[in-house]
């Protein structure tokens, strides 16, 4: 295996949880809701997914448990931010803090436990192709699921009526309500989808990426996912690009540190974040006329006005 192959493989695995978590949050934000609890939902997905997999011995049940934990966490957020029209920023932050704490409790007795990582796909012939084989056809199922998710979300948002209605709720909830759409119900589904995706991304971390549990193992990936949504200006295909750019730089700076590049490692570690800032500036300078953000983003909706 060449170095380039190795780098590409690690880039893809590092980017996958970002893609999954970010595409969920993208749907949430296109519906007009900001859920800053991605990190909390993700780590609960990691803890519950790992715990369930250890107890049942089934990776599949572990994944389901991770998704379920993410959805359950998102329902707490939905109760606060949608049901009670509480401030979405505060509710999301609270959810993250809550998730980080609760996951420590759930995972406490599983520290030190080890599982086999989820097996990589092995397609006869194709996987044996030089270079293309291991990179494109030798990944774990999550990688394909993440790309499939992005394509489905793109198709859903731009090609289906339900997607149109969801975007309408995010654009102008007062108008959507005036046309007779159930804004809160639609947003609830979006928030649950976002929770499920965050849980799935968490389960990927503890079941495939690094197959063990350690507290705080999401290490800020939930926040990066949030940044990627803005970076992508709420467009699915650009989100895929952004997540891979992010994952790529994370891995490259690791390799650079390993090769003894004479730049302080702290600076290299900060590189992905610097790149995000630069990219955000470039994008916002190029855009003129109107803001790409959904019009009703972050505004609570209640039926009374």
């Amino acid at each position, binding site marked *: 295996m060449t170095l380039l192959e190795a780098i590409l493989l690690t880039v893809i695995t590092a980017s996958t949880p970002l893609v999954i978590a970010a595409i969920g949050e993208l749907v949430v934000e296109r519906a007009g809701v900001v859920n800053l609890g991605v990190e909390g939902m993700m780590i609960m997905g990691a803890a519950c997914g790992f715990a369930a997999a250890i107890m049942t011995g089934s990776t599949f049940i572990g994944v389901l448990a991770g998704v379920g934990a993410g959805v359950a966490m998102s329902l707490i957020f939905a109760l606060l931010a949608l049901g009670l029209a509480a401030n979405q920023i505060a509710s999301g932050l609270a959810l993250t803090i809550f998730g980080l704490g609760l996951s420590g409790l759930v995972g406490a007795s599983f520290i030190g436990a080890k599982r086999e990582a989820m097996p990589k796909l092995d397609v006869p012939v194709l996987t044996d192709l030089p270079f293309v084989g291991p990179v494109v056809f030798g990944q774990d199922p999550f990688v394909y699921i993440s790309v499939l998710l992005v394509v489905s979300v793109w198709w859903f948002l731009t090609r289906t*009526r339900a997607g*149109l*209605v969801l*975007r*309408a709720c995010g*654009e*102008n909830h*007062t*108008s*959507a*309500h*005036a*046309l*007779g*759409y159930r804004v809160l119900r639609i947003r609830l589904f979006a928030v649950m989808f976002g929770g499920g995706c965050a849980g799935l991304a968490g389960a990927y971390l503890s079941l495939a990426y690094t197959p063990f549990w350690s507290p705080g193992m999401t290490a800020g990936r939930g926040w990066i996912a949030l940044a990627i949504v803005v970076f992508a200006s709420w467009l699915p295909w650009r989100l895929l690009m952004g997540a891979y750019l992010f994952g790529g730089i994370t891995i490259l700076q690791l390799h650079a540190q390993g090769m003894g590049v004479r730049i302080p490692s702290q600076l290299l570690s900060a590189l992905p974040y610097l790149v995000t800032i630069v990219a955000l500036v470039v994008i916002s300078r190029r855009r*003129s*006329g*109107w803001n790409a953000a*959904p*019009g009703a983003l972050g505004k609570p909706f209640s039926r009374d006005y």
Partner: protein
Amino acid sequence: MDQAVGSAGSTPLVAMHAIVKTFGDLVANDCVDLDIREGETHALLGENGAGKSTLVKILYGLLQPTSGRILWRGAPVSLPDPKAARRLGIGMVFQHFSLFDAMTVAENIALALDDARAVNDVADRVVEVSRSYGLPLEPGREVWTLSVGERQRIEIVRCLMQNPRLLVLDEPTSVLTPQETGVLFETLGRIRAEGRSILYISHKLEEVRTLCERATILRHGKVIAACDPRTQTAAALARMMVGADVGAARKAAGALDGPVRLAVRGLSLPAPDDHGVALREVRLEVRAGEILGVAGVAGNGQGELFNALSGETPAPDAAAVVMDGVEVGRAGPNARRALGGAFVPEERLGHGTAPGMTLTDNAILTGHATHGLVRRGFIDRAAAQAFVDRIVAAFDVRKGARDPAARTLSGGNLQKFVVGREMLGDPGVLVVAQPTWGVDAGAAQIIRQALVDRALAGGAVVVISQDLDELFEIADRICVMFNGALSAPAPADGLSREAVGLLMGGHGESNARETQPCAS
């Protein structure tokens, strides 16, 4: 005046019986009866806060009545949501459009259609329907790129695509230019010729008199009268609506020889963004005691002119704008306020006031520079409240709580508050944009009179308005804004509407650009 409810001959298309709607202690509709016959154009008249919007929202299923019945062709129906209303054949054109700015015309229309059709099919139908009613629309354009008139077309076309029996229009002309209004009336004529009923809500009494066969007049949530508006004078209708006589504002008749208080000298500004208009060599002079009216079709640079006068957009050089002899072209709004300037922008919510903030907070936002509401960096709450109380008393602002959030006030009352806030300090230079936009007759009269009084007291007043009636009523001189340039002002007496109309269309100018597409 016939008070009879229902018609003797046939069953009305829709009849609302004894509708009561309460919000807490407030009775918005108090036992209201309204019936609309097949094929008639029915006017619903009333001041802001009279309960028109509430009644119409109940008819469209957006609100549920506290009590009362709705009959559709004689059979009782319940309207739990707008879908139910649309299924019966009720279409609604909202006053504040229910459009999605970042979406295309076709997407906006698809959202209002209850059968799940592909957006592409909708686009074809949109072209077809909009052509047949003389309302051209490009389905692929995004809404934020369109003019107000074009946006209204979207609302109307999306109602028509559902083949409604009853079309409800809430203040449709309050945002339109005279030309656009003409197009709308042609369209309404076609709709009526197809035998559809129209419920027409408006403050503009002349429109109601030319358009409608019957009128129901609401005041304080009750039906005051039902009549044939064609047999009434506008004054009589206004009297029924307001409950008191409404007179025209007395015009300032003094000679225009006072000192120049506001001057703009050859001001040119580039367009602020892709959708803005560049100001081209704008010149104007307003003397003490004068009201200068600026007419023009929306989007010809009026907003940019207002921002340049208020200081929101600084001029390239200080001498371009002069207030009372002081060059203020580079000064910001607060500096200009400190020199006796006052500014009322077109948009009440969002520009004139911060919607979620209380009236005292909003008063402080502009009044801190001039009314002593801030002492040593701290806000003087008592002074701010007293300031608001004075505005409320002077301009008859009606509100529930003592210090409510700005957005809870009705349009007319909020406008009175904004005008009052700016005028209470007796400003030497007053610039107002669309002062009576969407404001009921009573409030509009109070505001116009206040503008005239300010001029009589020696102020220089600039009124930017699309309402020609208003300009001819109060302005001493009128000029027209077209494509970023201002025509030479002419005395309002002896000026014909035709002449102003031609200037508004860009005639009399060599490089007239294409005006908005109008129906032929």
